[in-house]
């Protein structure tokens, strides 16, 4: 389990560091995506989550959902292209679940990927991800989770 400046960054996930999102390939071939602990820390306590609906197609790096925290709003950009198969009702009822468990119950969408092999090639994982997040946090002047 990787940690960068106090932020949990699991090494088995795939990340788009610029967009601060993660992807995980499940055993059934589906992809689960969400915000990183770093992103959740930057956003603060989330109060709203608006996902794209099941059945909708999402292009790579386009919004899968929007999240709001008090007076801030931002996108959750999908790290891979695909069709939405599930959104998270638990998060809809309690958006701060993302802050508490960003890689578990706080997931934000499940997709059937259009091209996992191609899209995942642009993502980073393992030690490369930890190094990339350290660099981003340094550039952003981020003190830590």
């Amino acid at each position: 389990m990787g940690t960068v400046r106090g932020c949990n960054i699991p090494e088995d996930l795939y990340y788009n560091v610029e967009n601060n999102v993660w992807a995980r390939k499940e055993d059934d071939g589906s992809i689960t995506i969400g915000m990183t602990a770093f992103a959740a820390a930057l956003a603060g306590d989330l109060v709203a989550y608006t996902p794209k609906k099941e059945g909708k197609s999402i292009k790579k790096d386009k919004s899968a959902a929007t999240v709001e925290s008090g007076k801030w709003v931002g996108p959750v950009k999908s790290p891979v292209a695909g069709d939405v198969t599930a959104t998270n009702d638990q998060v809809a009822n309690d958006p701060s679940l993302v802050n508490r468990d960003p890689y578990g119950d706080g997931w934000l969408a499940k997709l059937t990927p259009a091209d996992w092999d191609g899209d995942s090639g642009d993502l980073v994982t393992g030690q490369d991800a930890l190094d990339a997040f350290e660099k981003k946090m340094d550039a952003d002047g981020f003190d830590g989770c």
Partner: protein
Amino acid sequence: MDFDEAEDQLVIFLMTSGPSTPQRCATPFYLGSLLAAMDCDVKIFFTMEGVRLLQKGVPEKLTAMEGGKYIHTFMQEAKRSGVELIGCKPALPGYELEPGELIDEVDEVANAGRLADLILSCDKLITF
């Protein structure tokens, strides 16, 4: 029309409110950020008193409510979401403003014809 059909929609905010009505000056940027987060193409066109929000030193000191975030912060967050800010050139003289006095976040200073094009070509027009 909803989030699922938002991609590439052109949304124009016509911002005429300014420092005399500060409580009207945060929401357009927040809503613009939200629409940009939904992958809409969002542009905010400042005219009439709205151009005063683009004057250096004004949005940095203005809040919509006591103790709230500065309007400049809302504008910067909107910019980070991809929102474009356009100032109305013909409106500047009325407030004794020169283009060089505007904040760095302004993408463009344009004539009324640009606004007319945006109005006629956009999917949604919202006025504040």
